[in-house]
């Protein structure tokens, strides 16, 4: 079982989108995947087939001391989803206290899950720093840090480094992903250049383009790969998935003429 945590110190960079899409891509390749939403926004299910925010979820169950994974569902792509669910401020508070008392709670709950041993668990986290994000970092084998291509991200170098220091994943399994990239904008291009200089080999060679197709897919409660398989964002996400599978080299089709598209 492999646990992947999608974290970021910046908001609005697309953690939930990433989690949903990666889970779908992995499921399409035959790998059992489970997407867990640790973020109170409760939007993960909207990407994976639910037309409304999920009422049921793990948060209330865990706060009440019950088995946390009761509120999960499978979608038609074969992805198992465990949404946050509707939760009040008290529930959130209770969960934070739970983590304070049992720091290993998340890890234990994940291990107790009745899923095949070769499946992948993806954790959608709230803004770091936060207790749940920290908990996710401590039980993840792979960490994906999502940053957008802007000056905010280049200024966040320090906090991302601190974030990664608190992670238990090996350095080779820590990747920085640039999202919402629009090369038509000079500020984005310059920011990407800066991020490349800052992160070097840690930067995942695929950059996620800002694509209207993703918003359209969300409106239809789908993944972009189902709605528009030839969208550039679909191609980028597939590349990130390949990176997760272990292909660390730069994408061949980008640089060499004569290569065929994947």
């Amino acid at each position, binding site marked *: 079982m492999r646990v992947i945590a999608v974290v970021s110190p910046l908001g609005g960079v697309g953690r939930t989108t990433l989690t949903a899409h990666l889970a779908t891509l992995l499921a399409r390749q035959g790998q059992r995947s489970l997407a867990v939403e640790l973020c109170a926004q409760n939007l993960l299910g909207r990407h994976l087939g639910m037309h409304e925010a999920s009422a049921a979820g793990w948060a209330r169950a865990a706060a009440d001391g019950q088995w946390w994974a009761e509120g999960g569902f499978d979608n038609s792509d074969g992805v198992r989803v465990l949404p946050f669910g509707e939760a009040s401020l008290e529930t959130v508070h209770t969960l934070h206290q739970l983590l304070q008392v049992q720091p290993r709670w998340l890890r234990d709950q994940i291990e107790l899950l009745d899923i095949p041993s070769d499946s992948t668990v993806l954790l959608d986290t709230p803004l770091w720093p936060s207790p749940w994000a920290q908990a996710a970092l401590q039980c993840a084998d792979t960490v994906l840090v999502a940053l957008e291509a802007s000056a905010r991200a280049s200024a966040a170098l320090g906090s991302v480094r601190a974030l990664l220091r608190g992670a238990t994943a090996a350095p080779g399994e820590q990747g920085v992903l640039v999202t919402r990239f629009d*090369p038509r904008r000079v500020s984005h*291009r310059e920011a990407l250049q800066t991020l490349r200089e800052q992160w070097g080999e840690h930067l995942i060679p695929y950059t996620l383009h800002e*694509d*209207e*197709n993703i918003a359209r897919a969300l409106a239809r409660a789908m993944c972009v790969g189902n709605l528009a398989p030839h*969208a*550039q*964002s679909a191609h980028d996400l597939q590349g990130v998935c390949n990176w997760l599978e272990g292909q660390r080299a730069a994408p061949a089709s980008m640089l060499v*003429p*004569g290569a065929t598209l994947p």
Partner: protein
Amino acid sequence: MTYLHDTGVAPRANAPQPQQDPANEGSGPGRVGQWIRWLAQQLEVAPGAPWWMWLWRCLVLPATPERALLPWLLQPGRWLLAGLVFVLRWGWKGLALLLNGVFWPIRLFLRAMDRLATHVNVEKGMRLADQVLSPLMEIPGLRWVVLGVGLLAGLVVMTTPFNWLGQTLFMLLCWGLSLVLRRLPGRYPSLALAAISLLAMGRYAWWRVTSSIEFESAIESFLGYGLLAAEAYTWLVVVLGFIQTAWPLHRRPADLQGQSASWPTVDVYIPTYNEPLSVVRTTVLASMALDWPKDKVKVFILDDGRREEFREFAESMGVGYIVRPDNNHAKAGNLNHALGKTDGELIAIFDCDHIPTRSFLTTAVGWFQRDPKCAMLQTPHHFFSPDPFERNLGTFRRVPNEGALFYGLIQDGNDFWNATFFCGSCAVIRRGPLLEVGGIAVETVTEDAHTALKLHRRGYTTAYINETQAAGLATESLSAHVGQRIRWARGMAQIFRVDNPFLGKGLTLWQRICYANAMVHFFFGLPRLVFLTAPMAFLFFEWHIINAGAIMIALYVLPYILQSNIANAHVQGEHRHTFWAEVYETVLAWYVALPTTVALINPRLGKFNVTAKGGLVDEPYFDWAISRPYTVLVLLNFAAFGMGIMRLFFWNTEETATVLLNLLWTVYSILMLGAALGVASEARQVRRMHRVATRLQATLYQDDGTVFQAVCIDFSMTGVGLELPEGTRLAVGEKVQVGLWRGHAECTFPATIMLHRGQGATGLQFDPMTREQQIDLVQCTFARPDTWRQWSDSHDIDRPLHGLQEIAQLGVLGYRKFWESLLEAARSRWPTGSQRKQQGLGA
């Protein structure tokens, strides 16, 4: 006022008309009139015709299109022709089938030899040879002894006379051996193959000189010795070429040493005269994008046309602009003038349409650092547009083009002997040595090769790196191509006369041989013409210019041709397909013959004509002017063929073998001339800006925010072609942005959709771009280091017999195009009757 011709044709006799029964009409005079009218109708006599017309019409009906006499007479002719074509086509197929069957045992033999080759372990053999031979070779003087012994053995093999059985056995053994050798990898099998082919050639040469030069009359002697001289020329070229390409060096680029602050300064010269700015712009942009410290590279436009728009362009781009008050010595003078105005340690020279990749300097300068005596480094001239041969014969990117042999093999071979010469562009020269020899040479029109010769005489070395680092436009039309080759031929002949490589000091023996071969190569004009016309001596006049039985000729010539083809296909196969050299030489022979002869006699005679770049062929046409000499040769050869057929069946039935041999030779010449005619038929060029075909990752950004993945299938400075996924909805005229990659960075360019087909291929034209965007575009496309790397992957493998068949087909196609052009020219000159009539009716 419209005026109608009175054609004298009444309404058609069988047109539906109310039948008037003359018997039942009125009476008296009215009745007679009706009878006359009815008679006039039947006889088709016009009203008011004279009395004799009536008599005439009793015998001869007037002419109408249906009753025309001439076409009716020609009808059987047409049937006969159709029948002949039918017979020929099926006869051809039957013949092909028969030949297939006859050659089946030979194909089996070939396959057996291939199988044998797989059992030969080359690696072990080479290692053994290295272990044993290397220490032996270290003994001084032993190399020359071995060479001497080898030459002696070769001489013995060449001069031993055989009878027909011996010669046949020799041929079969050589052939079998070379079939095995050609499948083995490595340099030594290539050397062995070349040696075998030299042996076969030597045997043929010896036999030819000793046993076939006995003539009966003066004219036969003259022609016979002429043919022998032409053949001797080819033998010389083969021997020199063998030495020149014996050991291609395959030099790798040297890494740059030291910090970038210690690297040499480079001046980039882009000389131009009358080329349009659109062509030069890309080169300048790419030169500005060269990977080199910005403070160590300066780009200069050397404008011999002194044009204002170029000056403005240079100013807007921030590059240098140098002019001079006169145009003495054309490009050489231009470069020398700029030498005085700049001060970089190295000089990179690009023709105005040769676009460098950004890794040009980082690839080239390393050797200057490593070898202090290196004065010049040359890289290949690569063309991304088809030259006249490729365009008009349709072989672009399938068959290697004419320059591929020189830049792929010959310069590499030259490099081993330190005889690489400057080719005018895509090269870097060191300033010091260049000033020492007085700048670029101005004494001849091939100033580049002459400059390199002078540098070599001073003891400097030159280098060649066989990696395409720049690409440009090929000559646009056959006349421009021929003009360029005439200049080269004239220049090389001038150098041969003025600064002969065999005379004077400073060169090693091997350098002399390499230079001599480069120059002697251009004297192919006269010998090629001799070969194209030699069989006519016998077929027209029954003169025997080779005094030997046809069987013996065949037995000696066949191994020579076979061996040399096998050796050439092995050594040169990926750079030039077999038999294509004949096509190139045939096309240029007539035009090169005179300038080289004149230049040999008096080097100062002759004009210099510049090759125009960027011209457009917008209507397909047949270049009659250029093809006049071939037309004459074709007619002569066809006449000779006809005479040959007559001789075969009627007149010379006792010399069948000789007649057949001459006929075969004539057929071969006819096919080659057909291909030459095919090249003269200029095909249409669609665009001024040549698109380069490629496959690059690209992105398409639409206005509504959607982003699609695409593949860029061709590019130019004015537009791209994209392959989009099925179902992408685009409207013509829609404004989009195209993303292309430059290394890791993605750059976007504004474009408009020009054409969009449902299957996904979309053509876009770029909107006006800023200067930075233009530089980015060049860097994403032309200046990519890997743009030209996979160019030759689309080349077919050289299969000699297949190649011969293809050339034969091209020859037949050439004749068809020639015939069609002839008919069209005739039709426009002498319009037929009906066309002229139609013109008259329009008034």
